[in-house]
């Protein structure tokens, strides 16, 4: 083999090797297997361990398309299910209906503008996206954000976890027919969105957590609002328990439905509540703590059976755990700066612009060119309400990422859907989908 055929693996920050086109990797489609291969790619045949039962007459088999415009598939998820009578034998999630090329857009935006983009991926937990991105950029920059910024980040992301889980419970309830739960979930989430709006000015897609700290300090009187949240939400959780947890109809619809075992969950890289519901104690907040979350006391909630009911229970109990963190952060909120004092990364205080020429130049530089990040690559993960949300950034030393990739938990969790749904009845599909809590913006990016 001649040397020219090997394209060296490029290391960020070094000179990019010139690309030598070769025919290596070209797919040769032989005349005899091309039909089969195309069929596989188009989904006409599926390779799996499913065995056709010849006893079942053909008229009882059918392929049904659910979505992408189906109200209970949580956005634009399309499911192709193969039915045998009322029983789902195989299913195949088809994604890409919300693909907007956001990872690519991230390469066009400077590190300063980046959070406006990533926050729109998983729109139910925007602050976690911003946090993962900011932590990755900060690791490349090798800067340490001040304690108050870290505490604010933990406070906001944990509140975001509560609001996201409330939507998950609400939609889970709606899909199974508990319409009151839907209304209550959205109603109670409003309390947290109002808090966000008071601090960031926006209800979603905040552009609040930035590389170097947070955009702005908490609003005056924020402790009163937190007190109200801490007082009201536990009451509401009590209501949910009365409404659903102990309700025999709810239990009949969820217990033993859509089971994912611990081995399957680990094998499919499923993270977050679906993994913990299967009994695996894995939480990024405990294993790779970020933003000083290790100072606060909380438990990792796990389930036993990995069914829809356990996933629901894990979410409800995580709300309570997050409230514990919120309370501790509120009581121990440190004083001081909420952004690093580094003129190369964060804009100077406004007053300095009028006083100092240098500050004015820094201000101009940051808002036009952005700040440069040393060459290198890094991966940082946070525990989003849906699981491990990671951000992988390659920088070539410029003001924009050379490559940005987001490990979206919904995408991986969705892969567990076919095993969770195999051999269940059609009526359980929506319950299973809702319990995985996929956000299509997160899946497709």
């Amino acid at each position: 083999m001649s040397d020219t055929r090997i394209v060296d693996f490029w290391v960020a920050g070094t000179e990019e090797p010139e690309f030598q086109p070769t025919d290596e990797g070209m797919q040769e489609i032989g005349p005899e297997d091309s039909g089969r291969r195309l069929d596989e790619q188009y989904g006409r045949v599926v390779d799996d361990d499913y065995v056709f039962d010849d006893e079942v007459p053909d008229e009882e088999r059918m392929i049904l398309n659910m979505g992408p415009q189906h109200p209970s598939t949580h956005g634009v998820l399309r499911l192709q299910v193969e039915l045998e009578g009322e029983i789902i034998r195989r299913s195949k999630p088809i994604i890409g209906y919300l693909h907007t090329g956001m990872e690519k857009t991230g390469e066009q935006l400077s590190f300063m503008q980046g959070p406006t983009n990533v926050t729109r991926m998983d729109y139910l937990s925007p602050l976690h996206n911003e946090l993962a991105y900011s932590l990755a950029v900060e690791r490349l920059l090798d800067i340490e954000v001040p304690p108050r910024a870290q505490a604010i980040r933990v406070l906001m992301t944990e509140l975001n976890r509560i609001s996201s889980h409330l939507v998950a419970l609400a939609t889970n309830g709606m899909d199974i027919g508990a319409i009151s739960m839907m209304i209550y979930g959205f109603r109670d989430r409003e309390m947290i969105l109002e808090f966000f709006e008071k601090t960031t000015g926006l209800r979603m897609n905040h552009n609040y957590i930035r590389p170097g700290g947070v955009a702005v300090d908490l609003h005056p009187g924020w402790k009163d609002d937190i007190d109200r949240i801490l007082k009201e939400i536990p009451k509401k959780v009590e209501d949910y328990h009365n409404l659903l947890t102990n309700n025999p109809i709810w239990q009949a619809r969820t217990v033993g439905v859509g089971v994912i075992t611990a081995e399957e969950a680990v094998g499919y890289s499923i993270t977050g509540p679906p993994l913990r519901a299967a009994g695996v104690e894995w939480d990024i907040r405990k294993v790779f703590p970020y933003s000083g979350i290790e100072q606060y006391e909380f438990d990792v909630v796990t389930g036993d059976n990995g069914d829809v009911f356990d996933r629901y229970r894990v979410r409800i109990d995580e709300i309570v755990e997050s409230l514990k963190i919120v309370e501790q952060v509120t009581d121990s909120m440190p004083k001081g700066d909420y952004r690093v004092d580094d003129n190369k990364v964060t804009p100077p205080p406004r007053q300095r612009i009028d006083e100092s020429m240098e500050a004015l130049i820094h201000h101009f530089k940051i808002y036009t060119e952005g700040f440069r990040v040393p060459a290198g690559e890094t991966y940082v993960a946070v525990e989003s309400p849906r699981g491990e949300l990671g951000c992988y950034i390659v920088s070539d030393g410029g003001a924009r990422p050379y490559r940005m990739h987001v490990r979206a938990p919904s995408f991986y969790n969705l892969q567990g859907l076919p095993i969770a749904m195999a051999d269940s009845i059609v009526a359980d599909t929506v319950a299973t989908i809702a319990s995985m809590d996929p956000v299509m913006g997160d899946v497709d990016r």
Partner: protein
Amino acid sequence: MGIVKDLLKGLAVTGRTMIGTITGRELVTRPYPHVKREKPQRFHGRHVLNRYPDGMEKCIGCELCAGACPAECIYVRGKENDIDNPVSPGERFGYVYEINMLRCIFCGLCVEACPTEAITMTHLFEMSTTNREDGIYTKDELLMSPDGKVPHMFPDDPLADLGELDTADGWVRATAPGGRAAYQGVRMWAGTPGVGDWSPEPSQEERDRRSGDG
């Protein structure tokens, strides 16, 4: 018997909420176009181009806002000021200023970037139009008049709340300290006609106090 009891417990929750809603105690919705929600001070709404109290335009046509905008929806062209009849106190002024509201994501980066606080946000959020041209706001719509009145796209609409345009957003104020606690509570911008002189947000000590703490 247990099943019936558990069912009744759930029904009690719905029943209580229903009564609370009918009596208005737990009512959380409002008849929207007629009754509007009170928005927090930092709300991100439609932009406005400010003037100094003496009527001069604050914008100096530096294009920083256009450079910071991630949606690339701002178009600015600066022009030299006429020495005898200046539009802004600086050498240049914003001659053309356009924001494409159809692209804007209301992130507020333009407000943070502007070195003269020329562009800020109001509380107006109702900006639907029936054609695309109306989505592009030019200086005619954005610039406040010398007395501080901000033009509204549909001033005759009976449901329009013109007061929303007078409420300037606190974002610029909030970001003014730039993350330094020592600069919080310090006034650092020029006043605006209409809105007047904005008072700074309180210091961190005051901000972190509970109302019950006296």
